[in-house]
């Protein structure tokens, strides 16, 4: 008999007023008892709508059935058939819009906590297994993967399992892409990412860090001179957007990318890091997505009073509900229906050498109200007349989204891109250039970890098909 509790087993978390002062993980994870109890809420229904909702089609009811029986390693084996990063996805997937959004239990009450169970299984496995993945026999075909974020990692993993010799090229000094430089430690501990990447290396994947494709080496060189038969571009969407309002180049204005990279990749919050970061007193984070929440919560942990400035309402915040809840619990102040007009700078007329000259001292905003729905279906925010006001802040973080980096497009012959910079690719990841595939944010623009992983996986299958058909014809 299934557990008919209408609500999920709650996730144990660090107390909000303790955690907003440290960078340790917020959610502590289920105990085996909680996991078994939660797994028993799954009805194992015939249609399995949850699987449909999963971009990488994990056999969800099958792994949950094993959890219910306490067979955690078997559950892990089932999850691994579909994903190479379960400990990551269990933490950062927007499950409410995917698997859990389709769960039958969600019609009356809360869905099964699929994400929390996935995380539990992956953590259990990582804590209890020392067995390394065995390297499959190689087929001798070389494939290059550009970027070591979620798209690249999942593509490389699938190809390696098929026997391909895969090399990942990463521009930064550490592999992991957004999992390392973007998502903060308190949401996704870096040890977990490192472990998942080590698993990939056990499969025989080689990772070349400090290699900027388009500068250190070009795609054409990889294919024509270095013998790679196919290339997967998973270079993400890394270019930050700014608002082009006055004052954006003042000292104390960060892109969320820079702020998060200093903290996550460079560990600027630790005393032994050589990388500097401001420790502001009051911060305005502009934007309402997951990245804005991450930046706000990091700023809070550096000791600041933090405002999230967003032009639409609370209902319209694009961030995951859980992230917004956590941010509110931690004391982040939401200034919704508010739009910045100008960032104000400090200038001491008496003392031109005052070090504070040219730094942020406030952000001038207007109040907004929601008008008619726009093309995206969301109600368009419009300015309220005479509603200008200023928030005193000494730091502003712009979290307005990102676009793909033009470096690869500019240095690769006959690779077509969209006007806004995304690489043109069909549903299997094929680009306009033979043997070159692409997926993830580099194609779609900024999206989620799991969608990028799904695209990497699809492209891996297409690359396998491409190389096989080419070898058969020759």
């Amino acid at each position: 008999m299934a557990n008919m509790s209408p609500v999920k087993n709650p996730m144990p978390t660090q107390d909000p007023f303790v955690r907003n002062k440290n960078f340790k993980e917020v959610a502590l994870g289920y105990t085996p008892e909680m996991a078994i109890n939660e797994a028993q809420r799954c009805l194992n229904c015939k249609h399995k709508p949850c699987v449909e909702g999963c971009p990488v089609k994990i056999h969800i009811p099958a792994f949950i059935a094993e959890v219910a029986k306490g067979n955690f390693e078997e559950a892990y084996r089932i999850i691994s058939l579909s994903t190479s990063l379960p400990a990551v996805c269990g933490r950062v997937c927007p499950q409410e819009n995917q698997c859990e959004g389709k769960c039958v239990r969600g019609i009356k009450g809360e869905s099964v906590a699929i994400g929390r169970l996935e995380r539990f299984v992956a953590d259990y496995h990582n804590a209890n297994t020392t067995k390394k993945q065995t390297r499959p026999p190689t087929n001798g075909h070389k494939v290059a993967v550009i970027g070591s974020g979620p798209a690249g990692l999942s593509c490389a993993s699938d190809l390696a399992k098929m026997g391909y010799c895969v090399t990942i090229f990463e521009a930064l000094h550490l592999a992991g892409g957004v999992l390392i430089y973007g998502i903060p430690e308190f949401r996704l501990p870096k040890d977990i990412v490192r472990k998942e990447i080590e698993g990939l290396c056990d499969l025989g994947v080689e990772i070349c860090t400090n290699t900027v494709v388009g500068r250190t080496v070009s795609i054409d060189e990889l294919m024509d001179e270095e013998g790679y038969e196919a290339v997967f571009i998973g270079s993400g969407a890394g270019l930050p957007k700014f608002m082009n309002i006055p004052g954006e180049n003042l000292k104390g204005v960060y892109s969320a990318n820079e702020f998060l990279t200093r903290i996550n990749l460079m560990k600027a919050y630790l005393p032994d890091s050589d990388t500097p970061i401001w420790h502001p007193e009051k911060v305005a984070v502009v934007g309402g997505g997951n990245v804005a929440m991450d930046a706000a919560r990091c700023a809070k942990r550096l000791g600041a009073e933090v405002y999230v400035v967003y032009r639409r309402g609370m209902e319209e915040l694009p961030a995951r509900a859980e992230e917004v809840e956590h941010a509110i619990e931690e004391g982040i102040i939401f200034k919704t229906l508010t739009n910045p007009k100008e960032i104000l700078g400090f200038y001491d007329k008496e003392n031109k050498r005052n070090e504070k000259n040219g730094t942020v001292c406030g952000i001038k905003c207007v109040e907004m109200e929601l008008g008619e729905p726009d093309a995206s279906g969301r109600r368009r925010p419009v300015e309220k007349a005479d509603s200008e006001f200023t928030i005193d802040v000494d730091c502003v973080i712009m979290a307005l989204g990102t676009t793909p980096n033009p470096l690869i497009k500019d240095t690769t012959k006959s690779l077509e891109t969209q006007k806004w910079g995304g690489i043109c690719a069909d549903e299997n990841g094929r680009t306009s250039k033979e043997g070159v595939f692409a997926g993830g944010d580099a194609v779609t623009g900024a999206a989620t970890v799991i969608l990028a992983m799904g695209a990497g996986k699809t492209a891996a299958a297409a690359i396998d098909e491409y190389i096989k058909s080419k070898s058969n014809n020759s």
Partner: protein
Amino acid sequence: MYRIVRKKILNPTVTLMDIEAPKVAKKAEPGQFIILRVDENGERIPLTVADFDREKGTVTIIFQVVGSTTEKLNHLNEGDCLSDFVGPLGRKTHTDGLKKVAVVGGGVGCAIAYPVAKKLHELGCEVHSVIGFRTKDLVILEEEFKNASDKLMLMTDDGTAGEKGLVTDALKRLIESGEKYDEVITIGPLVMMKFVCALTKEYGIKTVASMNPIMIDGTGMCGGCRLSVGGKTVFACVDGPEFDGHLIDFDEAISRADMYKSFERKKHGDTCNLFQKEAE
């Protein structure tokens, strides 16, 4: 890991190193830069390529000790390794079609101006180099510039070497004496470049300035290196590092350059004390 194969002290605060980095050496061009990290906790710092040897697979960097990272770097010796060394980044210096150019370098900026002068000289362009330093002890690459220039003017603030005066004084004299330059290329302290650009603007001579702002990744990701050029925001790492000097907002760049001054002071002090402790 990237091995230091040669270290040469050029003056009390400026050091040259050849770093083993074959992939970077294969592609590097004058005007481009690299990013390095000294060790595991190291900061990523950009340095412009001073020279390269494609056959030996080495890239030359020349740096001035200004903060904790360059201090740490300066304490490494031949045979030691850098944790990371990535590049070449940015766009190369545009040299096509130039027939006569004035290269104006200041201080450690001369290290970056030199490969540009050399490249232009090799291409058959007439090169006039104006290099400036505070004082005689700080002069670097004088011989190298002599070999790469049709005319060389060495300036020092105190007149202890070459002529007494600023690089702008020398450049102004050259222009007034009737030299017609297709372009002026300037690399050095921001304040110097600001005044070089102000001078050439008066005479309507196209001027390119090489910028080296604070950055992290060097590939366009952080936006920390943004500058205002012609009223538009650009990223020095991918759009530059060289820009039309008459359009750069130098005052903003000067302000942004000291964003971490107080942090740097503290860190520099800590590092110095650390080395002192080691010495004891």
